[in-house]
């Protein structure tokens, strides 16, 4: 990996963390790489109420594209600031800050496509991390993204809910349409977008709060705090964790095993009822048994949600996904097809070489 790329990778993670407040609590700060920022956040004296004290709150400095949304009122403020009206609490179309979820659609898209990109390119400064990429992600299916390190797969994933927005020097060209609406349009609130398109990360990162509060957090910041107990139970059941934790909902999420923590994070991601769940190597830190449970869960989630999962584990992609996209070095989407086709008879020789291990 080139030094620049390595640097950018690091930067992106840091910025992702800094984006936390605009991201309704899917991230936590229990990873050591986040510590410096936690410190600065504490020093900044952000909203440190309750057990979220160690969650970085400094996104008040991030005023360019993602408004601070540590709370629902902040989110509402952000929407007001755009002059596009306020988001009704009961509105299901929370992607954007107005009622333009589909009204703003500019093009046709196949009925089953929920996300489609057209010549989507991402640059980090001068370096092009993602070459013009055009692909259609089907609704309520599992789409896997595989490829070697530095191939742009995580960049692509993070582009979907604009997690790359706050990376200095990051520039996005082309279109990324969610239900036909370009999420990079000016009238799209990235915070609202991330409620609709949730994310689960490689390392399980529950808050240092109770199991129940971990799941309820996303609901509370959205003022969706009616029937919280019921919604928490529902999310934990959907995350296949309920039976294991139902008698200890008030104990810390950090006391759970790694696999349980990751399912707790998935429960937290689905509690606000998103439409799409992005997963960045969700099982790479888990043992085989926990991995199997997460894989089973992903398959079940696809009945209700669209799942896009980045994985280094090709067999995992083969096991759980309906469609597989193969990115190769240089940020190029080389092949995107039914998973069976990719793993039995890929069209591109480079894909064949990569998945059979002849690459590199």
């Amino acid at each position: 990996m080139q030094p620049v790329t390595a640097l950018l990778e690091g930067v992106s993670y840091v910025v992702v963390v800094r984006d936390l407040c605009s991201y309704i609590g899917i991230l936590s700060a229990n990873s050591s790489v986040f510590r410096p920022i936690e410190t600065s956040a504490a020093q900044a004296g952000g909203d440190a109420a309750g057990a979220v004290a160690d969650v970085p709150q400094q996104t008040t400095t991030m005023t360019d594209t993602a408004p601070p949304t540590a709370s629902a009122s902040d989110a509402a403020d952000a929407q007001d600031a755009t002059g596009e009206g306020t988001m009704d609490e009961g509105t299901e179309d929370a992607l954007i800050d107005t009622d333009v979820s589909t009204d703003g659609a500019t093009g046709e898209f196949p009925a089953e496509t929920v996300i489609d990109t057209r010549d989507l390119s991402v640059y980090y400064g001068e370096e092009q991390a993602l070459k013009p990429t055009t692909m259609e992600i089907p609704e309520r299916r599992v789409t896997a993204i595989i490829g070697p390190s530095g191939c742009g797969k995580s960049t692509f994933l993070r582009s979907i809910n604009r997690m790359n927005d706050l990376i200095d020097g990051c520039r996005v060209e082309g279109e990324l349409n969610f239900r036909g609406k370009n999420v990079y349009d000016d009238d799209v609130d990235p915070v609202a977008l991330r409620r609709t398109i949730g994310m689960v990360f490689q390392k399980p990162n529950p808050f240092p709060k109770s199991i129940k509060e971990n799941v309820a957090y996303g609901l509370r910041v959205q003022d969706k705090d009616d029937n919280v107990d019921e919604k928490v139970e529902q999310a934990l059941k959907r995350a296949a964790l309920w039976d294991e934790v139902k008698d200890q909902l008030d104990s810390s999420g950090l006391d759970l095993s790694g696999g349980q923590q990751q399912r707790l994070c998935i429960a937290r991601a689905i509690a606000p009822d998103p439409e799409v769940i992005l997963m960045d190597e969700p099982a790479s830190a888990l043992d085989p048994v926990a991995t199997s449970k997460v894989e089973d869960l992903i398959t079940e989630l696809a009945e209700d949600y669209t799942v896009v999962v980045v994985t280094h584990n090709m067999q995992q992609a083969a096991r759980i996904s309906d469609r597989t996209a193969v990115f190769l070095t240089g940020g190029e989407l080389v092949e995107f097809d039914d998973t069976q086709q990719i793993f039995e008879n890929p069209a591109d020789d480079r894909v064949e070489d990569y998945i059979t291990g002849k690459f590199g």
Partner: protein
Amino acid sequence: MARKDYQQKLDDLRDDVLYMSELVLERLRDGLDALDRKNEDLARDVIEGDHEINQLYLDLEQDCIDLLALQQPVAGDLRFIASSFKIITDLERIGDLATNLAGYAEDAEQDRYPDVDIQSIGDQVIQMVEDTMTAFAEEDVDACREISARDDDIDALCERASQTVVRDLIEREVGTDADSDEIETLLQDVSRLLLTIRDLERVGDHAVNIAARTLYMVESDDELIY
């Protein structure tokens, strides 16, 4: 190239399948030769040597299972291993048919039906097996399709040969007053000859199976698999 050990195992499997086919072809030629010359020693060698082919078959089957279980092959590698798994079964069956031919050698009566040229049919099916294994080794899909088409000719040849025998049997009109030993001998000769024709025809079928799996292996095309 990455995964050297894995690549070596794939190369070994390919070599072993080809080695098995050479062994089977040798037995097939010997079986046909034993039949032609009524050579009982050669016939015995073929029959007793079948266990060697069977053991090789089991070993290669295990190699395929090991590769599937331990290496998680995909794409072209997966098709190669899956095809090899099927092809060794066909080769093992051809080996069994070679022992059948050897088994017929002892009592075979060639002269009763001079119009039925077992050796010619045998040479043609052996050529089919040779060609199909060459197609496998060279990943020659055109040859696979040609071999499949050639099997129609073999089938027609075998059908004509069978009809020749049966027609003669009918025309001979052996009455119930015929000598019972004569009837018994005739029955055995006819049965044996029909079985020989059937076995050779089946060798051709196995050659087509191998061609079909080779086509799938190379192009992921199941056109010839049925």
